[in-house]
């Protein structure tokens, strides 16, 4: 049976992980590659790096990070942040990323989705959607890191990005993001039931029960979490055990490279 995925997410600024990660066992907790290696070792199923560097003119730092990750981490990882053309995507994929994610650029020029899907295949095009449930109950797409409303309905946009060739949707709720109080279940469910591709729930993870809810009630195919793993208080395998105990298929075996090779 296909398992549900737990995806670890790092915000990276100028090659350094932000969000105050404090792992005692790491020499350099700000190095995304070292963190990625640790998460892989601890049983994460997949990783996402979001480059939040203000200027995207110099991509050498990101390319270096992607290359070093591909050298050491043998699970899938996605890279996003400021990718605006299919050449930007190609650079990341050729450096070793398995998928790329686009958000604002896809809203501004939806053809970018189809161009990427045509050139590299849908399987590596993840469209990130930031949405907010408004006071009137409508679900609106936001861009520019959740700051700018677009007037676009989140479910309609989700359908459109799939039609244009997105292979997966990474859905972040602006209502729940950062509160560690649970995912936005109605939004997640509305989008997941509207599209035929996998949907990653994002924004609001605070504990294992939130992830269970996102999958059982929100119908998510994967759950993304940033901060809850960053402090070591919720070990990844503990969370997985709780999810499995709730009846969710999870990848529980997790072998060390050195033990198996």
């Amino acid at each position, binding site marked *: 049976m*296909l398992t549900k995925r737990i995806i670890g997410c790092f915000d990276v600024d100028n090659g350094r992980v932000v969000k105050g990660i404090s792992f005692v066992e790491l020499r350099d907790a700000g190095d995304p590659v070292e963190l990625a290696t640790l998460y892989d070792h601890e049983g994460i199923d*997949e990783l996402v790096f979001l480059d939040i560097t203000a200027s995207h003119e110099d991509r050498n730092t990101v390319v270096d990070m992607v290359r070093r990750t591909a050298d050491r981490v043998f*699970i899938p990882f996605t890279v996003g942040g400021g990718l605006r053309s299919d050449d930007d995507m190609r650079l990341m*994929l050729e450096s070793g990323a398995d998928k790329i994610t686009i958000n604002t650029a896809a809203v501004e020029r939806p053809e970018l989705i189809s161009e990427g899907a045509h050139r*590299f295949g*849908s399987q590596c095009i993840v469209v990130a959607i930031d949405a907010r449930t408004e006071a009137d109950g409508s679900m609106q797409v936001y861009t520019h890191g959740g700051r700018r409303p677009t007037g676009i309905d989140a479910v309609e946009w989700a359908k459109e990005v799939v039609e244009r060739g997105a292979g997966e949707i990474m859905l972040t709720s602006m209502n729940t993001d950062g509160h560690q109080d649970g995912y936005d279940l109605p939004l997640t469910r509305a989008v997941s039931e509207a599209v035929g591709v996998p949907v990653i729930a994002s924004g609001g993870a605070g504990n294992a029960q939130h992830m269970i809810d996102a999958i059982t009630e929100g119908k998510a195919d994967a759950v993304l979490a940033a901060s809850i793993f960053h402090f070591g208080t919720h070990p990844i395998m503990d969370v997985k055990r709780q999810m499995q105990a709730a009846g969710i298929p999870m990848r529980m075996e997790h072998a*060390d490279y050195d033990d198996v*090779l």
Partner: protein
Amino acid sequence: MSDPRLADLDVIILDYGAGNLRSVVRAVERVGAKPEVASVPAALDEADVVILPGVGAAADTMHNLRARQLVEPIHEYIAADRPFLGVCMGLQALMTVSLEGGEHPCLDVLEGQVVRLPEGRKIPHMGWNRVEQRRSTPLFDGIPDGAHFYFVHSYYCDMADPNDVVAIADYGADVTAVVERGRLAATQFHPEKSGAYGLRIYRNFLLEHSGNGGSR
């Protein structure tokens, strides 16, 4: 730990313009071999092991293999029962025909069709699925039955000969996960993205064929 027995093996990873070969290269290096990326037919002459990776669509793959005049050399190589490992699209390309975006004749090394996954579930089939071993083979040495591997695909191989199938995954159908025939093996999942057990697949395959250096 990497295995010193693999250091002298001539491992060729075929580059036919399918993009990201880096993770396959790194996985093969991680288990101790020194692979060479090649896109010319002559590379197959001296190879001990050939790996055909790939993502994307069958039509593009076949187009690229033809454009690089690799179709005949691959046929001859496999017909001589020399060690060959296909990965993902590198498995599907071995089939008789792919129905992805039309009807595209493939390499016809393995009989059967590449067909769309059944409706009713999310497509692509994306993520870690449980792989059930149908019979024991050195390819699975050290890998528990039911271990999970990473899949990303929308079409799968409907094999004419069930004896070719050594492992399956359940996704609304018995999805062909690993095939083996003689010294040919291929996986639908991505071993290079399947953690330690994925790397073990590469190690097992290379180790199995490191003894006699193929049949050159």
